[in-house]
């Protein structure tokens, strides 16, 4: 996907990006932003918005609708009550981009002055669909390996090393486990399934590839981990084993860094161990400012306010660095990524993102989650062998498309 044109625009804009924002600011645009953030994230976001408002004289109305954000959007946007912008991982782009009557997303190619080149390549890809620019990225997320340094001398580099450490501890009868890992969630499981190069969803053919040999191989590796986790694959039941110090490892995301840091004295994070020398290719989500279709009919000042905030936030090194430090956000702003002044934990995640792939944005991806979850559950419960489970999931997904 070429971003040349955008780059050109961005080039033009970047000269006077501050100036033009300031100019718009005199008229004082207002935009609404919907978020669904945790308390700490929310506070930080609020203060950044304040900062932006004072710098730009635009007004941002930040709202935090309850429940599932996508369900809220589903009803709000068609009835014209939706937000101008919202923050979520990039994987909704495809799903919303194909909506036509009414449209859900706004192509901001002409309104964004910043060149997309300032972001990492994966991030650039993530926010575009069919050549349209639907948002700006500011962080990525994926899962990596947490370990308790009191229990693990040396972070494992290979799958076998990890297994041997787990063998050492795993003893459920006495409340000890090898691993905390919500294994039936495809997002968490994706890394191992795709470790051998198979794709859960092939972005070229727009088909799932679950029944491929590579995926099955990856699945076999994953299945070995099933024996080391508490019997309840639910997120909360899993994390508690590690948090209580009853398991040496956890596979989880950066959002847990802060919490686990409080509970585990010597917390370490590293990339997932290699399987047969392959790095697990975890799915990563790119946190994105979405531009909603509400902007199509809005005043230019509102459009400027919404895009202005996104540009300001996503390209502001200070913001991105602070976020990396305080929230565990993995930067996607190239300058910060390359700068390297990041904590070890964040670096580990950043590295894992490098190994991984962004969650495909194509709408067909939507049909993948449920069958794959069920397949993983069946295998986890011992109701089915992993091979047939993937075959079944693959055919179910094809059927549903």
């Amino acid at each position, binding site marked *: 996907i070429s971003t040349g044109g955008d780059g050109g625009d961005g080039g033009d804009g970047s000269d006077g990006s501050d100036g033009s924002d300031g100019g718009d600011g005199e008229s004082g645009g207002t935009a609404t932003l919907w978020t669904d953030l945790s308390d700490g994230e929310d506070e930080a976001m609020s203060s950044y918005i304040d900062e932006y408002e004072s710098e730009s004289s635009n007004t941002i109305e930040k709202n935090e609708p309850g429940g599932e954000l996508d369900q809220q959007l589903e009803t709000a946007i068609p009835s014209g009550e939706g937000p101008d912008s919202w923050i979520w991982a990039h994987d909704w782009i495809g799903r919303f981009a194909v909506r036509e009557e*009414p449209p859900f997303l706004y192509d901001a190619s002409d309104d964004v002055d910043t060149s997309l080149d300032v972001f990492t390549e994966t991030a650039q890809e993530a926010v575009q669909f069919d050549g349209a620019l639907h948002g700006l990225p500011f962080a990525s997320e994926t899962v990596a390996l947490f370990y308790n340094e009191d229990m693990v001398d040396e972070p494992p580099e290979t799958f076998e090393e990890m297994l041997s450490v787990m063998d050492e501890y795993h003893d459920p009868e006495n409340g000890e486990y090898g691993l905390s890992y919500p294994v039936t969630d495809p997002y968490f499981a994706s890394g191992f399934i795709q470790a051998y190069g198979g794709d859960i969803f092939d972005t070229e053919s727009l088909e799932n590839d679950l029944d491929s040999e590579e995926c099955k191989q990856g699945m076999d590796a994953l299945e070995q981990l099933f024996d080391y986790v508490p019997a309840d694959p639910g997120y909360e039941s899993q994390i508690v084993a590690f948090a209580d110090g009853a398991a040496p490892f956890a596979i989880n995301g950066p959002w847990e860094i802060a919490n686990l840091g409080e509970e585990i004295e010597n917390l370490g994070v590293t990339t997932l161990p290699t399987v047969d020398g392959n790095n697990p290719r975890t799915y990563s989500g790119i946190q994105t400012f979405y531009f909603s279709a509400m902007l199509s009919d809005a005043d230019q000042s509102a459009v400027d306010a919404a895009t202005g905030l996104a540009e300001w936030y996503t390209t502001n090194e200070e913001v991105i660095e602070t976020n990396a430090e305080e929230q565990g956000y993995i930067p996607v702003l190239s300058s910060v990524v390359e700068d390297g002044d990041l904590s070890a934990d964040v670096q580990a995640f950043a590295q894992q993102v490098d190994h991984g792939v962004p969650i495909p944005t194509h709408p067909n991806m939507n049909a993948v989650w449920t069958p794959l979850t069920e397949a993983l559950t069946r295998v*986890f419960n011992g109701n089915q062998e992993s091979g047939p489970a993937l075959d079944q999931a693959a055919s179910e997904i094809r059927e549903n498309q």
Partner: protein
Amino acid sequence: MASSQLDAGDGLSRLRSALPFSGRDWGLLLVIPGVVLFSSFMLYPIVYLFYISLTDATFAGSVIGGGAELIGLENYVQLLGDPQFWSSMSTTWLFVAVSLVVKVFVAVGIALLLNHARVVGKRYMRAAVIVPLGFPGIFTITVWRGMFSDARFGVFNTLLGRYNDVMSSLSAPQVLLFDVPIGFLSGRWEAFFAYVTTEVWLAYPFMVIIIVSALQDVPKSLHEAAMVDGAGWLQRFRTVTLPAIKGPVLFASILTAATSFQQFLIPWVFNQGGPARKNELIIVYGYREAISFNEFGLSAAILIVAIAFVGLFMLVAVRYGGLAEGVGEE
């Protein structure tokens, strides 16, 4: 009754004469506001839902935004051909039946015990026992989800583990021990058991208050007559207590059964109707079609069928359960 004698003063009588129907019908005026409010907020959405079920809407937005087209009964045809629909239906009815039976027994037991002359402080116990009524379902169900965790350290598995420890220290035979951890949420029937337990827990308070009310209305002399007639405890229960609470229990059963049929939060919060959609109660099924598979029209059809079933169930219950006794003649 002195029908035309009641009078709400001049204003009302003037109004009465202006009515399009005869004077004795002015009671209708008192009823109409409720009917209007009810129809516009409760009946209308159902009609609307029915309309959606006739369209090819894929997601909520397409209905609201007007992007859906009428396709007649196609959704219904598709629905009847979907094995998951039939599986959902039968699981739902099974869930309704089993939880109903269990909750009747549980509630009758509790009500009897907490109305028994020998129990000291029963009034307080009765107040305590219905506390679940006060908590929102989303909360209690989430809590129950936690208790039923498959993990060995889940509440029930821990308790069973302790039980095992005690039993094996008493060197009890193996059959009396449980195979912990039990996968309450990962086994088909284990999950079903968990649903039923939770559903019973949610519904028993309502039943208990109704039964307690009924028990308190049973004349003491009936018990004594039966005693003099030579009836023992069990027979008295059968001939005096049971008939006295039969009506209320039936009433509460019908109402709670209809609620059970529409249970959504339990399966959704526990394991999304799992494992592997095996315990997908009907509303969960409809919800999933709408949300996960973007089949909004189909989803509406499912829900319309569910509503029809509840309506049918209520109709039958009302007809044959004597629920509308006292509705009286026109």
